[in-house]
């Protein structure tokens, strides 16, 4: 089942960070769409719940060097 969440991201320094974060769309299996905004400091992720968990997304973001300050339903 598809789920839509919004991650509030800390430590974004420039618009390039949005592109870095959106990499999970290609690297993390189960992510259907990832759209980050440096201006808003958050990222919307659409993913397949049967293939991926919220915690795994969170971990992937943290591995890229960012912090997740909150996760809200999208």
């Amino acid at each position, binding site marked *: 089942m598809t789920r839509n969440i919004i991650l509030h991201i800390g430590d974004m*320094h*420039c*618009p*390039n960070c*949005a*592109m870095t974060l959106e990499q999970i769309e*290609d690297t993390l299996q189960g992510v259907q769409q990832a759209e980050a905004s*440096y201006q808003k400091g958050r990222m919307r992720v659409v993913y397949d719940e049967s293939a991926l968990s919220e915690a795994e997304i969170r971990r992937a973001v943290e591995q890229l060097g960012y912090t997740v300050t909150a996760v809200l339903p999208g």
Partner: protein
Amino acid sequence: MIEIWLAFLTGLTTGGLSCLAVQGGLLASSLANQIESDLRQSTRTAGKRKTNPTPPAGQPRMAVPIGVFLLAKLLAYTALGFLLGLAGQTFQLSPLARAVFQVLIGVFMIGSALRMLNVHPIFRIFAIEPPAFIRRRLRRVAASGSASLATPAFLGVLTVLIPCGITQAMLAAALASGNPLTGAVLMFAFTLGTSPVFFAVAYFATRLGARLEKHFMRFAALVVLLLGLFAVDTGITLAGSPVSLTRLVNNAFPQTTAASDPAVLELQPYQPFSQQGNSPETDTAADEGTITIQVLNNGYAPNVVYAKAGTPLKMRLVSKGVYSCALAFVIPSLGVQEMLEPTGELWIDIPPQKKGARMPFSCSMGMYTGVVVFDS
């Protein structure tokens, strides 16, 4: 000519580093394919032979995609400079519109600097974010795995979509030049200036250390902040404000050429243009009712002129081998906007002014200033 050198030097110093901070990711992406394919090839070769063919850092093969990336970037920005110059020529901006434009650019740059310094998240509104579909396309192209030169070329061209703060300032200068050729040459010089830094960093290190990057970002932010304040100030000057930092500095260093001799400058009988000498060298002693101002590479001499009130005057601008923006002459209060030849002279009619009036003039960028004081 001076602007072109300045653009090149700006690119070579702050521009190169600041652009690298913004566009370095694209360059790294375009190189990633090359690195990956080299690595794959070397692993395969190592399996066949019993040697270790791991290529040394800075191998010539890596230079090609970097070169292609930078060449594509250079061409793209030169074309953009041409188009902006053309746009500036088509929509000839009035001095006031230009002043407003300059102030807005200044505010944008100050906002960008405060954003870079992480003063408050609100300043993130000054960041230019490419739309999601462009970001996705960029990422896909970068990760497409093909080590062809099309990738660095494409990514090099796409750097125009993510200009850094200093590049944005340079693009604004290209627009303000109002000449496609000048715009193109300015952007060519600036982008060429940024290239060595890109090349060196990509070729030898590929990445700035995190610590160095942090310090560097602060330094770049301060440079952008200063340039922003300068842009606002010159905008105010261009709007004809008698009070601005640029005027203060210019007035602190008055031009002291022969032409500033009050005996020469104060009122002399006016003669029709046809009776006057045309050579700037022989005509320093102006006629009555004529104000002669030498246009120099670094401003105007004199930059404080005393003239008679209540009578029409002629202003004579003389240039000789000048290639700075001082050639673009503006009198905001009269709506005068003239472009001088590098060597030549230009006459401007000044209608009668009230006693005590001050009539500021400047170059079209608001950098070089002067004032006519109607005091008698």
